[in-house]
């Protein structure tokens, strides 16, 4: 009964995704979600900036979100996640963090979590830096 199995798996995929589920014809055909299906060109709404991000901008001496303007909340393996360019991989959001319904607010949360993750001594690059840094 291979037909029934494939139907079940596609239902599961739909349940765990961000926002409203709208599968493209291509996704239905391959039975998988296509990453980057959020608006990567969305410009940030500065009225929704979080206090942590305000403090970060001030500490760095910048006027705006700077590199964080390109950070968005995406998803991987049916879980909300942020792409960490330094580790070159997706970092998954814990289940206990409830995400708001619009992309602007989700993106602000993604930015805050990414800064915390990248600046943490537990970041995967810290070990590499310790082992390989030349100066």
């Amino acid at each position, binding site marked *: 009964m291979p037909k029934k199995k*494939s139907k079940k798996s596609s239902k599961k995929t739909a349940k765990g995704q961000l926002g409203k589920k709208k599968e*493209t014809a*291509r996704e239905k*055909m*391959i*039975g*998988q979600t*296509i990453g*980057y299906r959020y608006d*990567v*060109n969305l*410009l940030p*709404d*500065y009225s929704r900036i979080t206090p*942590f991000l305000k*403090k*970060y901008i001030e*500490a*760095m*001496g*910048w*006027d*705006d979100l*700077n*590199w*964080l*303007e*390109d950070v968005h909340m995406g998803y991987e*393996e049916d879980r909300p996640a*942020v792409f*960490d*360019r330094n*580790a070159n*991989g*997706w*970092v*998954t*959001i*814990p289940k*206990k*963090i409830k995400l708001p319904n619009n992309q602007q607010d989700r993106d602000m949360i993604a930015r805050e*979590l990414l*800064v*915390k*993750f*990248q*600046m*943490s*001594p*537990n*970041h*995967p*690059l*810290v*070990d590499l*830096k310790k*082992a*390989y*840094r030349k*100066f």
Partner: protein
Amino acid sequence: MANLKTTEKKTKAQSMGLHSEVLTGKTQQKFFNPDEAENFYYWGTYDVDFNKRIDLDVNDLDCKEANKKIDELMSQGYGTIVIKNPQGKHSLGVGVLNKLNLIFEGSLGYFGVGSIDGPTVRINGRVGWSCAENMMAGKVVIEKNAGSCFGAAVRGGDLICKGSVGARTGIDQKGGTIIVGGDAGAFTGFMMQRGRIIILGNVGINLGDSMYDGTIYVGGKIGSFGSDAIESPMTKSDIDWIKRKLKVAEIGENFDVSKMTKVVAGKKLWNYDALEPTEKKGAI
């Protein structure tokens, strides 16, 4: 011939487990820890004070010595470093991963301030080819003109040239914002993948040629559109955002942003949906 199976000596990377992972095709999931302490700086960077200022004359130093000296000064807590007599030397101020105010009193040669992640740089002169190549974060302001490949492969941050720039500006751009107060040459935004370019003046031929994604805003005349670059309507959020960015860039105060041309990728040359490997289809 060396037999890799019987080689007992492990490299440093192997002892850290980097070569023993089982590649199953699935992501090795990493989770955020929401209770992580508030920290704004990378591990191993220096705690610098913007109010602690020093001048550094690089007249008799080569680029390697000058860059090492900048690192030394940061380790001593200097947050504002003024470089005197750069004299068009190549590769000055590269690889700074710290918050810092870096000021160049003169012009830079090729590959100036490349691969930076965080500093605010002001260059009171011109720059050569590939200025701020691979920049990750921070702000770079150039008071005069820039050469070709300005902001090649930029990944984040604000790169501003108050004058005009050469050809292939923002080639292979992967994020961040490039702002040009004057004109830009041919093939601006060539193969750009993400990010934004704002040109207040005119642009040469083949604008946005083979661009994958991202947005280009042009205030003046366009020589010609490149392959798969198309015009798109300006939205209110575009206008508000450009006004904000121009204020940050300290240029174009009285510029009429609403009359700019917005250029995006037509996505006919490529399409992620169409590029999904057919093997996946076969797997289910």
